[in-house]
């Protein structure tokens, strides 16, 4: 099976581990990941201004590239890219006037009318591969690993692009973690915002937000947090030393990309690095539990 794949910029640098793990794991599941030959930044954040069509050009151009490659479905790993592309796709499908304007602007590109479906890898695993199939391929179950699923905002909101039928009580990550042999633990912050870009303009608010999430996860007795968004990883994982400066009581918490846990369970852990991109607590846990060579 082949699937067209849109990586997004961050997955080529700061979140290379998210990508490497996903490609290795999908390979184990018999899926050939075909990165789009040409692609640009998706825009990172979906533009909410109704009259701001220029910021829809980037995501729509990505969808045109996917369509031109012959794909009817394009997969993303990054939650932000998923959200931006899926919402731009909906705009093209549902707003005829804006669709016309966008197509006129694109003049030299082929016309686009929403022919391509945007899916996040978790949806692809659930709907196309199936949890039973994933479970069958697990060679190293993550038995005893209590994991807090963290969706953040962009996999679930707005409801129209939610990867789960129930955006306020999602279960796709629970099903995913269960298939890997891990124990999903609800911890009350599973659909919260990580602090997002507030970290740039209002870092105190961002620290409050991410610290609360880490505290709740610890209180729920989890061993690690699993997420899918490089921005969430930045706020909840990489920034833990900075958070500790403001909130010394915070204990360091391992944070994995969901794809890294999948790669570890499927026996391709060594290809799910570089682990230097994970925080120290994650690396320590990988070593302690012999999940991979760190």
């Amino acid at each position: 099976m082949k699937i067209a794949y849109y990586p997004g910029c961050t997955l080529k640098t700061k979140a290379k581990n998210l990508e490497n793990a996903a490609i290795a794991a999908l390979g184990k599941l018999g899926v050939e990941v075909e990165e789009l030959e040409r692609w640009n930044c998706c825009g990172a954040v979906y533009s909410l201004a109704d009259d701001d069509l220029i910021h829809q050009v980037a995501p729509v151009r990505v969808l045109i590239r996917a369509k031109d490659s012959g794909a009817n479905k394009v997969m993303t790993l990054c939650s932000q890219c998923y959200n931006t592309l899926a919402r731009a796709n909906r705009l093209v499908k549902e707003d005829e006037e804006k669709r016309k304007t966008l197509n006129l602007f694109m003049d030299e590109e082929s016309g686009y009318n929403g022919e391509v479906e945007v899916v996040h890898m978790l949806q692809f695993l659930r709907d196309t591969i199936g949890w039973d199939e994933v479970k069958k391929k697990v060679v190293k179950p993550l038995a005893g690993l209590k994991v807090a699923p963290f969706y953040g905002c962009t996999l679930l909101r707005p409801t129209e692009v939610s990867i789960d039928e129930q955006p306020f009580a999602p279960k796709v990550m629970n099903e995913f973690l269960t298939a890997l042999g891990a124990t999903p633990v609800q911890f009350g912050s599973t659909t919260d915002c990580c602090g997002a870009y507030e970290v740039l303009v209002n870092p105190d608010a961002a620290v409050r937000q991410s610290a609360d999430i880490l505290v709740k996860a610890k209180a729920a007795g989890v061993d690690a947090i699993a997420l899918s968004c490089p921005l969430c990883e930045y706020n909840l994982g990489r920034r833990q030393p900075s958070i500790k400066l403001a909130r010394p009581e915070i204990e360091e918490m391992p944070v994995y990309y969901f794809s890294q846990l999948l790669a570890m369970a499927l026996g391709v852990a060594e290809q799910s690095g570089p682990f230097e991109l994970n925080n120290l607590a994650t690396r320590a846990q990988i070593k302690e539990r012999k999940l991979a060579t760190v």
Partner: protein
Amino acid sequence: MTDAAVIPDMVPIFIMGKRYWVPDSLTIMKAMEYAGYQFIRGSGCRGGICGACATVYRKEGDYKIYTGLACQTVVEPNMHLAQLPFYPALRQKYDYAAASAVAETVHALYPELFRCVACNACTKVCPMDVQVMDYIAAAKRGDLEAVNEISFDCIQCGLCASRCMGELPQYHIAQLARRLYSGKIVVRTAHLNKMVDTIKGGKFEGPLQEVMKIKGDALKKLYTDRQMEPAMSDETWAPSSNVGL
């Protein structure tokens, strides 16, 4: 002289709004010189390589903007054109020796990269058909190798920067990426280092001094008789008779 073939067909073109009749076989550059313009800046190699003579023009009844190099583009009837010898764009200074060949170097020097909205105006205007927006996308994701490859035909004319709504200096960004990639990422070839050492070791110094003593016809003869690498030779070819080699 009655042969009609030597009398050129004349066509009207509009240079900065003023109409001139010029022979239809001329390039824009020759046509402008025919019309009385003299190029002091905005003209270089006249061979389509240096990028000094970027032209923007429109055709009659067509909303699209067209571009080309004046030395390469043949005139068309009723084209409206102007030369764009230079387009100001910010070029950052940096310490090459200290710069790391990583995405962050490019991002820190040119943060305006992230103002790109993928409108593609830069690509559409490029007279060299470089996929400008694609290399900007590659620069955003830190793929210096891709920037190097995609931007390789860039002639630094600056037309991309003239059309950018994000006000990016695309061609300077590409040049930075190419410098970082070619100087710090590409593996150095061993034979080049060997040759540089040979030159530094003074092997050619004596023969060069000998050649410099030769004057006039003898020097011309030496030049015309020199051994040239055959056009289709393979990499094992080496000169056998040249003085000093």
